[in-house]
């Protein structure tokens, strides 16, 4: 059995854990930071000093590592199944290696970015 198939339970638990984490935090992060981040509502909360303080805090760093990492692995697994649904087995390598490859890249970038704060 290929390694990627031997690790199916791992992909699935990352998918499930990522789903829960994203459900809890992503809508608020998108609304609070990406949509309203530049507004007067968030001017105090997301000022450079406060944002850096929140992000550099050990809990903040853990949050900023765990959320995108689990999120990327969740998205990769779901993307893999999306490819299978649309393109069948022909797309299996793209979905699996492409998806998980991007998730690995995302993990490395996330960890290095957060640790560099």
């Amino acid at each position, binding site marked *: 059995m290929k390694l990627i198939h031997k690790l199916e339970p791992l992909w699935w638990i990352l998918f499930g854990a990522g789903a829960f984490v994203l459900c809890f935090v992503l*809508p*608020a992060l*998108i609304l609070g*930071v990406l949509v309203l981040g530049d507004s007067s*509502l968030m001017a105090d909360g997301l000022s*450079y000093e406060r944002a*850096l303080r929140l992000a550099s805090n050990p809990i903040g760093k853990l949050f900023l590592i765990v959320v995108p990492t689990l999120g*990327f692995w*969740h998205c990769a697994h779901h993307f893999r199944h999306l490819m299978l649904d649309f393109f069948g087995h022909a797309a299996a390598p793209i979905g699996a290696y492409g998806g998980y490859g991007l998730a690995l890249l995302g993990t490395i970038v996330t960890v290095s970015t957060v640790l560099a704060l």
Partner: protein
Amino acid sequence: MSAAHATAPKTPTAPARKPSGFPLGFYRYRNYTIFAFTSIPMAISLACLVIGVGALGQGEEAWQAWLARQATPAFRAVHLFCLAFTLYFAIRFGWVGRKIGAGRIGPLPPPPLPLPLLGIAPIGGFVTVWLVLVVILGGWLS
């Protein structure tokens, strides 16, 4: 199975037909496909947030510039698009995900809650945490 049945020649079969309306023709398959598609907008949002963390690490000017760029019409449209799909994902996952924990898991017996409640409770939990998180980000309590 009798020996005669086992050795009887098989007639040629017509190939299996795909489920009707899959992936986008039937509303339930369509919802399922959209649910799978949410992985792409969510990954985009996560990537934007990681880039934002990178900007934060580069100093105040980079951070403010990054925040301002997210507010431009093109970026705002992308973020609202991603937010819509993320909300759809959260509601649907909270609802269908109720089945994951509804039975016996190893030594843990099934929870004594009816299935619909097991679905509404997580969604309630999600909304609560969203509100708390937005308040924390906005710094409105301190």
